[in-house]
């Protein structure tokens, strides 16, 4: 067929297919992530989770979708109508856009940008704007508190997140997500960056910051339901609320996908098809996110900032240094031991320096 059509048609065709695939994949992913989350958290809490709509509750997301669409859309009278209306739309845009640079499998990147990673980071950080718009536009005090928390949190966590990616760029010498995956090929998976000391640390930091970026537990302060009701989306109902939800779940998918790409070798893996490897890794990471949610209480806002600025940020800076050392040092066991030593030493040191936030040991007496 390619022989019969002019080139520009082919370009448009491939673009359209990519767009259609992403526009389909995004919402479907989101819908089934909600089901997965409810099921997994339910199981962790000795419950079954949704099981009434369809077999194993498989049609539950559709039922939720119908419910969301048919619900009344409430706009508070004092709300700023434009900001209130635009925010839920704006929040979905970056969440969908970043799907473009994620390599789903061998040659399955929608747009193989040579600055893919930069694109991802730049686009995903604009989510803050939409969240603040929503919180400001709703004219609600809970929303405002949530919005303020969100901005503070996202700005703080953006910094260690970007810095934790730098070692990867340093080692591979490329910003393209595809190149990063290719650099981790071979040795049956042992060349994944997570199996190096700096890679492991960077992965943990990137993942934690990613969890904070998509406002999920234990960093879910902007929407802390026990404190500020629902945070920035307190005043949203119906489909607008669903859009916020969708953005959150798509973000958690893309963050997990990127973490898998950067540190877990992306679609690299033996025997199974490449896209299956990719999705397996991504869903393991998503499972851990849900697991966090099912287990952990929430940080307080000042503790959150402390963790970012006083702990994660210095650690990432040291990590960049270690990655540089790794790049130039000869490939021996000494390299591994030295970098692991430096990192654990600095981890220990930072923990000592932050002793004020560490848990105390308590002794209890018994009276008669």
């Amino acid at each position, binding site marked *: 067929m390619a022989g019969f059509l002019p080139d520009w048609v082919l370009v448009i065709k491939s673009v359209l297919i990519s767009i259609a695939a992403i526009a389909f994949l995004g919402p479907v992913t989101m819908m089934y992530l909600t089901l997965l989350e409810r099921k997994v958290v339910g199981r962790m809490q*000795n419950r079954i989770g949704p099981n009434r709509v369809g077999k194993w509750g498989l049609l539950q997301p559709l039922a939720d979708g119908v419910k969301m669409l048919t619900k009344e859309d409430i706009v508070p009278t004092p709300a700023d109508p434009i900001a209130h209306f635009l925010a839920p739309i704006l929040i979905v845009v970056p969440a969908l856009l970043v799907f473009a640079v994620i390599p789903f499998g061998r040659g399955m990147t929608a747009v193989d940008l040579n600055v893919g990673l930069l694109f991802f980071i730049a686009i995903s950080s604009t989510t803050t704007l939409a969240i603040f718009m929503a919180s400001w536009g709703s004219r609600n005090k809970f929303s405002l508190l949530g919005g303020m928390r969100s901005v503070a949190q996202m700005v703080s966590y953006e910094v260690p997140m970007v810095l934790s990616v730098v070692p990867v760029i340093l080692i591979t010498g490329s910003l393209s997500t595809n190149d990063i995956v290719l650099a981790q090929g071979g040795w049956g998976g042992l060349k994944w960056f997570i199996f190096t000391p700096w890679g492991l640390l960077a992965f943990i930091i990137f993942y934690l910051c990613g969890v904070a970026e998509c406002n999920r537990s*234990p960093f879910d302060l902007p929407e802390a339901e026990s404190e500020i009701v629902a945070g920035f989306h307190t005043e949203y109902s119906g489909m607008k609320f669903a859009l916020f939800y969708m953005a959150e779940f798509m973000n958690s998918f893309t963050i997990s996908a990127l973490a898998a790409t950067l540190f877990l070798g992306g679609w690299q893996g033996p025997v199974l098809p490449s896209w299956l490897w990719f999705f397996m890794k991504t869903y393991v990471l998503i499972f851990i996110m849900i697991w966090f949610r099912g287990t952990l209480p*929430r940080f307080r806002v000042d503790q959150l900032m402390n963790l970012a600025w006083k702990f994660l940020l210095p650690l990432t800076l040291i990590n960049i240094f270690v990655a540089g050392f790794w790049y130039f040092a000869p490939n021996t066991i000494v390299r591994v031991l030295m970098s692991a030593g430096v990192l654990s030493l600095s981890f220990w040191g930072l923990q000592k320096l932050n002793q004020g936030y560490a848990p105390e040991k308590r002794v209890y007496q018994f009276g008669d």
Partner: protein
Amino acid sequence: MMEKMFEVQDPVNHDTQTLQVNIGPQHPSTHGVFRMNVVLDGETVVSLKPVMGYLHRNHEQIAENISYTASMPYTDRLDYFNSMSNNFAWALAVEKLANLDVPERAQYIRVIMAELTRLVNHVSVIGFLLNDLGAFFTPVLYAFREREKILDIFEEVSGARMMCNFLRFGGIKRDLPAGTLERIKEVIQNFPKFLDEFETLLTKNEILCMRCQNVGVLPAELAVNASITGPMLRASGVNYDVRKADKYSIYDRFDFKIPLGQTGDVYDRYYCRVLEMRESLKILQQALRDIPVTGEIISKKMAPFVKAPRNFKPPVGEAYGRVEAPKGELGFYVVSDGTPQPWRYHVRAPSLINLTILEDLCIGHKVADAIVILGSIDIVLGEVDH
């Protein structure tokens, strides 16, 4: 703490506005219909006014217009988590008033039920505290799994899971059905295992420690002056437990200790409750060991009034009966004028009195802490507003 507050709030140096937020009456974590009128400076609480009364049900006035026994089901509804200990306090008050004695077996059954209630209450309070901290329902549901087993026993014994209405003046309503003691033993045997698991999940969790330690510190002196009772007082290090101080019922026969905290913060309140549950289990084991196999369940003096509660007319006088309810000292003050209805009836509700300290605990902390402090006080709005 106070200095810090003014430092933050100073309007001359910082051109900022405070924000007044009404947390409640419809809010996920006010434990019912309770409103906190909070003034915030950024996230910091500058002033906090508790507004209560949304659930006011005229409890005392109703009790003054119905017979003594008819008040019993109403006491269930005070603190609906612990109906058995509410019944206990009311029964003690009237027994003092009418000078009734309680048969041996009934005494033991009462103590067993009261201590089971303490387990129910503490375990769910810790669960809900964690909910306030932001753990997505997991501790609550683990707690409810265990609570359910105890509530099943209550249902088996009294016919209702929460509104038990089981105690009567001078005894209990009915004897235990066959096999219940074995089931109670089984529950108690499995409970420490659950507590260990629960503690693994929570006690050493760094986030929980960070959130709870040195938050909402209640000094011992302030606690005594504000007449705080219960686990909250003991977390501040004051050794006061009505079970030991008053030795009501048959509590002098059991060997148990009172766990005391040192700091008086949210973490101590949490952990004192865990330790109290372990002590309660000791009492339960002893009670189950010593309980007489058969025996009277209601005093002979009271037996004729079981079928005709309105004929029960205690002599003229007054009495105050108190128990160590899971939330603190629960007392009933009753004045009789010789008629079937009490002339005056008053409840000393521990939730209400413990709640009065809320503002002092919260000022200077973040809004998230205010919620946690409220959770650690352990209120039930039915009792606060009675």
